[in-house]
C-alpha cells in the first residue's frame, strides 16, 4: 500500500497554463498537411486550416503555440511569407528533409491558426542568420498600431489591426543550429537584438489601452545539461544591466529530448522491451534534475524567480517510422509516450514556481505528436489523451503532495520510482490528482490521505499494454477511459493504479 499525502492548505505556486503549450515547426508534415492544407483542399478547412485538427486541438485547450521553429526559425526570413501567395518565395527547407517550402503558411496564417485555436502566440525570431533590422521590422509588422511602414504593409496584405505577440524568442538553439555560438557571444547578440524587439503597446495613444509590457522576451537557454551555457549567458546578460530588469529577459529556454538509445541511434518508437521501457522512463525523469540544477544557477542571478524557465522543446525522439523520410521525424506514439508525458507534466507542475511555459515537440505528425494525419484521416495519439486529461491543471494552484514509492526497473543505471504524482486545486475549485504508475506489470494500491473531507470523486485513465497505440486502421485502441474504482473513506481515498497507467482523479471537497 502506497501512501499519497495531500495538504490542500499549503498552496505552493500557480501552474501556468502555458506549461501545457505546444510547438509547430516547418518540419516534415507538421505545418503543411498536418495543420495547413490550403483553402482549395478537398480536406475540410477554415481559411486553409484543417477543421478536424483544429477541433481536436481546441478540445485539449492548447494554451500557446510556438512557431516557426526550432532550427527553421534561424533560417526563416519572415518577408518570404507575406503578401500574395503566388508571389511568395519558394525555398528548400535544408534543415528538415530538403523539401520545397513555398511559404504559403506565413505570419498571417500563423495568427489565423492561433485565432482559431484561441491560444497565445509565441513567435521565434531569427538571430542566427537574420539581421537586427529584420527582427525589429517583423515585430513592428506584427504589433504596431498606428502609422508606420510595417503597419502599412500589414494593412496592404489584408490585416489592418495589429496582432498580439505574447512571447518572442530571440534566436533558437544558438549553441548549435542557430549559429554555433559560445554563451558569451550569444548573450551579447541577445542583448543587442532584444533591444529592438520593441513593445509598441507602450506607445499606444489610447488612454483606455492596457499599457503594461506585453511581449515577453525569451533568451536561448541550454541544451540538456549544459550548465556552462546557462551560467555564461546569465553572467553576460546581467553584467551592466542596471535599469533593465532581470537581465533583459523574461524567459530562458531549456531543450531536452528523451531518446532511449542515444542521439545517433535513438531507438524504435514501437519495438522495445521492458529494459528499454524503464530506460526511457528514467530518461524522462531526468527532467527533474535538469530543472533543479539549471534552476539553481538561475536562482543565483534571479532569486525572486522573475525569469521563467521555458522548456520549449521536450518529448520523445525515436528513430523515424520505417520507410518514412528521416528528415520528417515522423514517429508512432504508444503507452510509453503517454507515461513520458504524464511523468514530465507532473515534474513541470511541481516546479511551476520556475517553469512557466513548456512546449512539447511537436503538435502534429512530428516527434511526440498529439495528432497524426494521413490525407483526410486523423488519429489522436496516447499523448493527446494525456494532455486532455491534464488540462485540469491549467492555471490551477499546485498544492503540497508526497507519494510513497519504491524503486523498480531491470538495470541499475535505469531504475525508477514506481509512481509519480502532482496535485492542484483547479479554477473549478476541485482537487485534481494525477498519478503515473511506471511499472510494466505491477498494480499499485494507493491510500490517499487528504486534509479535508471528500464529498465526491470521479476518475479517468489512460492505460494498456506498453506497446499499445492508435493506428489509422485501429484509431481507438488507446483512449481516455472512465476510472471508477475509487473508494472514499474518512481519511481520503483508496484506489488501485494499474500497471502502465496515467490517471486523474477529480475530487470535490466538502
Amino acid at each position, binding site marked *: 500500500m502506497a501512501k499519497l499525502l495531500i495538504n490542500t492548505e499549503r498552496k505552493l505556486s500557480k501552474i501556468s497554463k502555458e506549461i501545457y503549450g505546444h510547438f509547430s515547426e516547418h518540419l516534415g508534415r507538421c505545418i503543411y498537411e498536418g495543420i495547413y492544407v490550403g483553402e482549395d483542399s478537398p480536406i475540410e478547412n477554415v481559411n486553409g486550416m484543417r477543421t478536424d485538427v483544429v477541433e481536436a486541438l481546441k478540445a485539449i485547450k492548447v494554451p500557446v503555440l510556438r512557431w516557426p521553429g526550432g532550427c527553421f526559425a534561424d533560417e526563416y526570413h519572415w518577408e518570404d511569407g507575406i503578401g500574395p501567395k503566388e508571389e511568395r518565395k519558394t525555398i528548400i527547407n535544408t534543415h528538415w528533409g530538403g523539401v520545397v517550402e513555398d511559404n504559403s503558411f506565413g505570419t498571417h496564417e500563423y495568427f489565423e491558426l492561433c485565432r482559431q485555436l484561441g491560444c497565445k502566440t509565441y513567435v521565434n525570431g531569427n538571430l542566427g542568420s537574420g539581421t537586427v533590422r529584420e527582427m525589429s521590422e517583423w515585430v513592428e509588422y506584427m504589433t504596431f498600431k498606428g502609422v508606420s511602414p510595417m503597419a502599412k504593409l500589414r494593412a496592404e496584405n489584408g490585416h489592418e489591426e495589429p496582432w498580439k505577440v505574447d512571447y518572442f524568442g530571440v534566436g533558437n538553439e544558438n549553441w548549435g*543550429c542557430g549559429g554555433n555560438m559560445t554563451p558569451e557571444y550569444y548573450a551579447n547578440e541577445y542583448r543587442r537584438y532584444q533591444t529592438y524587439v520593441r513593445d509598441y503597446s507602450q506607445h499606444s495613444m489610447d488612454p483606455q489601452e492596457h499599457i503594461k509590457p506585453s511581449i515577453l522576451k525569451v533568451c536561448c537557454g541550454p*541544451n*540538456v545539461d549544459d550548465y556552462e551555457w546557462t551560467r555564461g549567458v546569465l553572467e553576460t546578460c546581467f553584467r551592466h544591466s542596471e535599469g533593465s530588469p532581470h537581465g533583459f529577459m523574461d524567459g530562458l529556454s531549456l531543450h531536452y529530448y528523451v531518446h532511449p538509445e542515444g*542521439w*545517433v541511434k535513438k531507438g524504435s518508437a514501437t519495438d522495445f522491451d521492458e529494459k528499454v521501457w524503464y530506460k526511457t522512463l528514467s530518461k524522462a525523469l531526468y527532467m527533474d534534475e535538469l530543472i533543479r540544477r539549471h534552476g539553481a544557477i538561475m536562482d543565483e542571478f534571479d532569486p525572486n524567480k522573475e525569469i521563467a524557465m521555458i522548456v520549449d522543446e521536450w518529448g520523445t525522439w525515436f528513430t523515424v517510422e520505417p520507410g518514412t523520410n528521416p528528415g520528417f521525424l515522423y514517429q508512432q506514439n504508444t503507452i510509453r509516450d503517454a507515461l513520458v508525458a504524464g511523468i514530465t507534466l507532473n515534474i513541470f507542475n511541481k516546479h511551476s514556481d520556475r517553469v512557466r511555459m513548456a512546449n512539447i515537440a511537436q503538435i502534429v505528425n512530428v516527434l511526440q505528436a498529439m495528432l497524426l494525419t494521413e*490525407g483526410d484521416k486523423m488519429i489522436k495519439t496516447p499523448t493527446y489523451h494525456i494532455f486532455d486529461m491534464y488540462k485540469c491543471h491549467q492555471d490551477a494552484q499546485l498544492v503540497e503532495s508526497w507519494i510513497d514509492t519504491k524503486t523498480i526497473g531491470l538495470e541499475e543505471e535505469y531504475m525508477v520510482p514506481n509512481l509519480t504524482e502532482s496535485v492542484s486545486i483547479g479554477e473549478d475549485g476541485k482537487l485534481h490528482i494525477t498519478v503515473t504508475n511506471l511499472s510494466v506489470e505491477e498494480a499499485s494500491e494507493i491510500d490517499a490521505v487528504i486534509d479535508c473531507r471528500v464529498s465526491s470523486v470521479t476518475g479517468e485513465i489512460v492505460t494498456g499494454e506498453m506497446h499499445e497505440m492508435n493506428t489509422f486502421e485501429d484509431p481507438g485502441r488507446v483512449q481516455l477511459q472512465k476510472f471508477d474504482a475509487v473508494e472514499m473513506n474518512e481519511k481520503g481515498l483508496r484506489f488501485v493504479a494499474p500497471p502502465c497507467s496515467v490517471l486523474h482523479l477529480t475530487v470535490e471537497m466538502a
Partner: protein
Amino acid sequence: MQEGQRYCRKCLLREMDEAEYFKNMYDYIARLPHEDKVSDEEYERRLSICKGCDYLLQGMCRLCGCYVEMRAVMKVRGCPDIPDRWKA
C-alpha cells in the same frame, strides 16, 4: 547520462548514410510477413501510379512522407490522396 551538450542537427542529418537507410528499408520490406504484403502484380500497379503522380519527390510521397516502395507493399496502406489513386 547525455551525449554531447551542443551539436548541429543539420550536420547530423547530412551525415546520415542514405545508402544504409535505404538498404535497411529494403531489408525491412523483405522481412515483412508474406500475408501483410500485396501481390507482386498489385505492388507494381501501385508503384506505376506513384510514378505518374505529382506528389512523388525523390522516391517519397509528399502527402504522407513515406517512401512509396515501402508504403505500396503493405496491404493495409492506401494512397493518401483524395481520392485514393490506388483504388481500382
